[in-house]
């Protein structure tokens, strides 16, 4: 009856509206701070693009068409208000400052929206506008410095290069330590697929790069196991929940949003170079060597020299060849989205493009996204919804890595070599360089390239129904699948494959999930004030991966990049993995009078990758939240909010597929000195061969477990204008599935087993403040701090260290070592006596023989900090982010090349003066005298002195404080747009990495040539970092 009445009234209303005339509404906008009137506030007629802006006295006048009766009043820093005009023509509107809402809604595991106050664990929310239009195509990079407890590092500034992310440290010795990524409920692959040798590869993208930042509504970071337990094993490294934009909030309007941005990108030069000495060794000119230890420029008799090609060329310094080699990159991003609807019925279609020309000649990244999605509440009460997104992305990069790549050459070019002034190839297209063993870098960028073509589709369908007011059942099917077709081309003449080599491969990855969710809610259970929510869930999961490839060598026709051009085929491979998981879970949430919250969860997983008779494992979690201000009613003007929280959780993690058995592998021997691969082609016969794998399998594998305890405190001051969120966590990873290194004389190199323990202890703190809040000016500041102490506490009996799986140079091993943080680098240390003084060889004046097998570098930072400031001034908004990474070390080939080669600036200073290495000389057993042996600069800076590639001398401090991000945005006042089709329009400039201060490294130390993954802190002749800046446009129709 009531309903009918309501309908009647509504109909009447509509009729009234139709007959009503267009009218002029006038009024005034005021606020508590500015009772005399707020100037510059936006007034919009809801459902139209008509609007105006208040004048200096806060007054406005607006023609409201017939049938419209709601005004939307907005002002930056204030809560947007909707005012029903009714029949009024004169309005006084009071707007309220948008006080930091500590009770905000966050998205938690399985997409469940929760009030922040109810959570007993840490979830941090980042709004889409902090990600979009920030001169950065990769979402992960845009998160840098903004989230406590999260470590993010880009591999380099090469287009599409991958970015590593770890939440609350590393929790698995060898498993995937990247968090689970969930996009609109879809488990989303963020794999990097480092199928190339990462020492020499081309930095393929982490696949989260397939997401267009403009589409993102919000990102919620679930930090600990307690937060992510409903996702099970997959999220033991945390989870990142990305929600994309929809038409939900448009209140039946249709909005067309157009975004466009153009950015320039500049490389950060690898070093300043000396300009006094040219090619050669021991002050002699040698035309074929890379060092710049030759004669000083201007030495009589060395005005000109004869180069390798027999030409007479001037002997002089050329400009910094990093500047000559790298080019200015360009990033064009454009997007349009059309959204419409309301909370129940809505749709969105969007298209985004990103086109990037990289800093390395001939490198680029292109991405095209098309998305369609919508939700509908059917007549029978069933809710259906779904989205599907198609992404096409393309990446082209040069090869990188030590020696035989443009980036391996760029750090070794003699100062007297003219990089760009002379032809780099001859008529036959072959490289012309100062040595025949390597290629001119510009030749390499044209002829040694890696390409990746990704076609990706992901989407979901969900169906839900409210059976009663307390029972909801929904089922969701999600799919994410892509193929990545890759080609690595090394044309004829390439240093790594003189006869040419084409490596083609196709990667296929697919993940399917079926999720059943049953949600029951009951208020006032047992007694008044106690509310309960019970969630039951089931997850069926299947993951497929396939990699098929062929390598064709011995090319015939120059420039014909098709494997049919090859005369020999090697390394044909087919790798297929499939794994399945079945999970059942339950979560009981209790809340008492909205100040005491308890959440208990449990999940059982069964995994195909564990021994069949023992493949199920259970893990629980509990979280408690207590809002003391409400419970004890102690809220004061100063102290407005106190919340205490604690949680304990355990998460199991299954093995990778096919680890249980010892296998036979296609036979092969050797490395880049010499190698063979079966089948062997001998005298016309093809001879197949299989040998024993280096690893012994185990039929007794059990899951890994991560157990975590977390306590936290939230405080709000002055009506929550100032907030503090602090957390301490202690995480222990046990039962690690690990290939333990064993004595090679066993016939094997490793053995798979459950061993080891690792601990992460950390403090996260977030301080937020609205420092100034007036209608004219608002200043918000946000500081986050992260300090994580990771320690490997045990590996296996008798094992004190072991390599992290992956590619490494012999003698430079990223490792786990007992008593050290994860990922330390084990290499040759300088020799020291008991007092820690460096030992000098009395015969040579150089260091005594190094000590191999020592921990020489810790790649994990001491602490991280990020300071965001947002200033709102009328229609201008300025946002800055300064972040700091203090401590942690980087292992750098590039800098060693520049030092031992005598290229870097400081090797040119007083070069003729002899030098003395710091250290002592043993006079007799245990008695030392200071070193006083003079050695030439070339020796001092050389491998026997400050150190070569595989030595402690390659370790540098990676501390950096930087202006990570700055964005200035101007929103056009709507009065300018009144007679235009535009609803909103803004223009902005933004820049990233504009300034940095790195006291221990000659260039930007945020580098990791090996890309996203468990090996970090390696600069192995990869591309440098970049700074981006540009303009952004956004308008709606």
């Amino acid at each position, binding site marked *: 009856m009531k309903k009918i009445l309501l309908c009647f009234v509504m109909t009447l209303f509509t009729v009234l509206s139709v007959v009503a005339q267009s009218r002029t509404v006038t009024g005034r906008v005021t606020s508590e701070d500015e009772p005399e009137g707020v100037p510059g506030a936006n007034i919009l007629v809801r459902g139209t693009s008509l609007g105006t802006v208040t004048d200096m006295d806060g007054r406005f006048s607006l023609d409201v068409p017939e049938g419209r009766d709601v005004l939307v009043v907005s002002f930056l820093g204030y809560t947007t208000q909707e005012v029903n005009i009714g029949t009024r023509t004169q309005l006084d509107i009071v707007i309220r400052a948008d006080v930091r809402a500590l009770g905000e809604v966050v998205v938690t595991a399985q997409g469940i929206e929760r009030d922040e106050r109810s959570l007993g664990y840490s979830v941090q929310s980042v709004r889409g506008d902090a990600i979009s239009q920030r001169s950065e195509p990769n979402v992960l990079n845009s998160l840098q410095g903004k989230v406590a407890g999260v470590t993010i590092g880009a591999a380099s500034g090469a287009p599409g290069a991958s970015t590593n992310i770890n939440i609350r440290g590393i929790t698995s010795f060898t498993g995937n330590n990247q968090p689970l990524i969930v996009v609109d409920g879809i488990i989303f692959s963020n794999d990097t697929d480092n199928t190339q040798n990462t020492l020499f590869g081309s930095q393929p993208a982490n696949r989260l790069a397939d997401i267009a930042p403009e589409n993102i509504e919000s990102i919620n970071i679930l930090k600990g196991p307690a937060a992510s337990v409903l996702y099970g094993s997959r999220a033991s490294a945390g989870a990142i929940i990305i929600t994309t934009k929809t038409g939900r909030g448009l209140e039946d309007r249709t909005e067309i949003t157009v975004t466009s941005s153009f950015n320039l990108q500049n490389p950060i030069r690898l070093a300043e170079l000396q300009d006094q000495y040219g090619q050669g060794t021991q002050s002699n000119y040698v035309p*074929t060597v890379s060092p710049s230890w030759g004669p000083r420029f201007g030495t009589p008799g060395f005005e000109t020299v004869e180069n*390798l090609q027999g030409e007479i060329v001037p002997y002089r310094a050329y400009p910094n060849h990093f500047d000559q080699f790298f080019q200015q990159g360009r990033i064009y991003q454009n997007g349009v989205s059309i959204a419409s609807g309301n909370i129940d019925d809505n749709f969105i279609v969007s298209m985004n493009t990103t086109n990037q020309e990289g800093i390395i000649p001939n490198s680029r990244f292109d991405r095209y996204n098309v998305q369609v999605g919508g939700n509908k509440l059917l007549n029978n009460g069933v809710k259906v919804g779904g989205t599907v997104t198609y992404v096409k992305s393309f990446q082209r990069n040069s090869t990188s890595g030590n020696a*035989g790549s443009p980036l391996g050459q760029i750090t070794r070019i003699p100062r007297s070599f003219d990089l760009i002034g002379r032809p780099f190839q001859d008529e036959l297209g072959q490289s012309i360089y100062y040595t*025949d*063993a390597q290629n001119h870098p510009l030749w390499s960028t044209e002829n040694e390239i890696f390409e990746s073509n990704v076609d990706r589709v992901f989407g979901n369908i969900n169906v839900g129904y409210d059976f009663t007011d307390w029972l909801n*059942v929904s089922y969701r099917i999600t799919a994410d699948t892509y193929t990545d077709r890759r080609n690595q081309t090394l044309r004829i003449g390439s240093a*790594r494959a*003189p006869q040419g080599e084409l490596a083609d491969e196709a990667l296929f990855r697919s993940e399917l999930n079926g999720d*059943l969710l049953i949600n029951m809610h009951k208020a006032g259970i047992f007694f008044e004030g106690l509310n309960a929510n019970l969630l039951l869930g*089931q997850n*069926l999961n299947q993951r497929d991966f396939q990699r098929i490839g062929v390598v064709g060598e011995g090319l015939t026709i120059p420039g014909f990049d098709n494997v049919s051009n090859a005369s*020999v085929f090697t390394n044909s491979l*087919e790798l*297929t*993995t*499939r*794994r399945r998981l*079945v999970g059942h879970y339950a979560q009981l949430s209790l809340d008492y009078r909205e100040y005491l919250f308890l959440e208990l969860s449990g999940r059982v997983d*069964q*995994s*195909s990758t564990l021994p*069949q008779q023992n*493949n199920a494992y259970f893990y629980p979690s509990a979280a408690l939240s207590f809002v003391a201000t409400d419970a004890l009613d102690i809220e004061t003007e100063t102290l407005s909010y106190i919340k205490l929280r604690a949680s304990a959780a355990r998460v199991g993690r299954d093995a990778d*597929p*096919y680890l*249980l058995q*010892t*296998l*036979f592998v296609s036979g092969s*021997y050797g490395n*880049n*000195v*010499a*190698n*063979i*691969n*079966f089948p*062997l*082609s*001998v*005298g016309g016969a093809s*001879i*197949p*061969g*299989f*040998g024993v794998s280096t690893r012994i399998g185990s039929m007794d594998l059990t899951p890994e477990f991560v157990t975590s305890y977390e306590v936290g405190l939230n405080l709000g001051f002055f009506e929550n204008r100032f907030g503090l969120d602090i957390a301490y966590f202690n995480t222990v990873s046990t039962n690690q599935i690990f290939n333990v*290194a*064993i*004595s*090679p*004389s*066993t*016939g*094997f190199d490793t*053995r798979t087993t459950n061993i080891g323990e690792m601990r992460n202890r950390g403090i996260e703190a977030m301080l937020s403040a609205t420092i100034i809040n007036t209608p004219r000016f608002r200043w918000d500041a946000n500081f986050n701090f992260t300090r994580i102490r990771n320690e490997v506490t045990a590996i296996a009996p*008798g094992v*004190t260290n072991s390599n992290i799986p992956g590619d490494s140079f012999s*003698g430079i091993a990223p490792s786990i070592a007992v008593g050290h943080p994860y990922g330390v680098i084990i290499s040759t240390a300088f020799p020291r006596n008991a007092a820690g003084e460096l030992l000098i060889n009395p015969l040579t004046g150089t260091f005594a023989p190094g000590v*191999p*097998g020592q921990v020489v570098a810790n790649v994990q930072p001491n602490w991280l900090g990020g300071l965001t400031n947002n200033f709102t001034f009328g229609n201008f908004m300025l946002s800055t982010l300064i972040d700091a990474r203090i401590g942690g070390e980087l292992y750098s080939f590039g800098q060693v090349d520049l030092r031992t080669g005598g290229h870097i600036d400081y090797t040119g200073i007083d070069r003729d003066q002899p030098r003395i290495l710091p250290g002592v000389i043993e006079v007799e057993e245990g008695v030392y005298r200071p070193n006083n042996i003079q050695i030439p600069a070339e020796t001092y800076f050389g491998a026997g002195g400050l150190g070569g590639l595989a030595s402690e001398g390659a370790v540098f401090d990676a501390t950096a404080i930087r202006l990570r991000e700055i964005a200035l945005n101007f929103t056009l006042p709507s009065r300018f747009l009144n007679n235009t089709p535009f609803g909103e329009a803004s223009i902005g400039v933004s820049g990233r990495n504009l300034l940095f201060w790195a006291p221990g490294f000659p260039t930007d130390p945020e580098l990791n040539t090996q890309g996203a993954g468990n090996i970090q802190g390696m600069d192995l002749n990869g591309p440098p970092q970049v700074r981006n800046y540009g303009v952004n446009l956004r308008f709606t129709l």
Partner: protein
Amino acid sequence: MKKLIYILGAVIFTASTGCSDFLDINETPNNPVAVTPNVLLPVAQAGTAFANNNELNRFGSTITSVTAGAGNLPARYDIYNLDGSDFNNQWRFEIYNGALITYEEVINAATEINSPSYIGISKIMKAYTWALTTDVWGDIPYSEALRGEEIVQPRLDSQEEIYMGGEGIQSLFDLVREGLADLDQESLTNPGTDDLVYGGDLERWRRAGYSLMLKMANTISKVRPDEARQIIEEVLTANNYMLSNNDNLSVTFGSAVGSRAPIYEWTYVSIFENDMMISTRFVNRLQQLNDPRLPIFVTRPNGIYVTIDNGFRGTLPQPQDTWSRFSAYATGPGGQGPVRLITYAQTQFILAESALMLGTPGNAQDYYQTGIRASMSLAGLTDEAINAYFLANPTVVTLSGSQEENLEKIITQKYISLFGNGIEQWNDWRRTGYPVLPDHQNVVGIDGTRPVRAQYVNQELERNPNFQIVLPNVPVWWDVTQN
């Protein structure tokens, strides 16, 4: 409402009970878990060839002044630098996890299908590989090695026990004898092209087995002359050792990318191709002997020998493609090799040395000359050319001096005939002190002396407490004379 709960329950139940099959998918489609001996044997043989012919050969040839280091590791070897970072790939992936474990698997797989011919071949090749390993490193894991998870930290057996046998330790000679016995048994399947050495010719495998006995007896002849004499006499009595160059125990590779002998790769193909060239000393030695093998062994791209002295640290000759390198004799015209592990000439020199030093049957002079002829013939010289050389150089080809002088002649000719097999050249020099090898320039090393063993690889020191550092200046058990 109740109905609904039943339906829900049924859905969950169905989904959960279908699981046992749903999850039974962990059999790898990517690798076999069992294979037949014919795919294992070539991998094992190639492993032995790699052990002899790859990095250890770069070392052996350089340390014996056949080649001189121009860069990277060979430049280190050239000045006697050797430590635990050297040869870890050889120890781990060519020897223990390469050849040796694979022979073990051939034996297992062949036992299952009753094919002792595969077992016999594997035991002979395994003995060869063990001998190579102990000759380079001295005491090594042997009786407890290759047991996988069963013994994760194998103990080391002494070189003496490995060669001579001991408590629970089978001697290498017995291993070969077992292998020879296996060859005589009825075999269900026999190797063909999968045998990279003899293409399945078992008679030649028998000769190889006996010839390996000669080689190993020769190795221990200084420290255990009586046992050595006895074994050589045993072989002579059986009278079935190598008869001609056709019997050479050599592993043949192919000319295609990925199928080529290591020496070809590191001489002509890989990014390390310019790490070494032929030493001036080797060229001088052969020139002094008017040896007609010199132009066959050593390349002259520009018509002249472009070489450097061992330990030379000045500017290298340019351009690099003029350097004198291992010729097709050692590398094969396109990388075929073969990698010669034991040659007919080598067995003749062993018999000559034994006749001279141990008094074993036969005439040292005859064996010596047969050895030279076999080597020259293998190099491609015609009988006329060989005869002409013998006529023109009677002092070279005649054992006319004291016992010591004659030994020097034998080992010097053996050294030349072993061109391309640096490890055997180094073994002979360590055992006899011949040929006389003057110190290289600029030597460093532990104490400036030429290394007489390889240091254990760092990985073993890190992973197996049974290993202790033994420096490269400590002789191995059979090396009882020092120079």
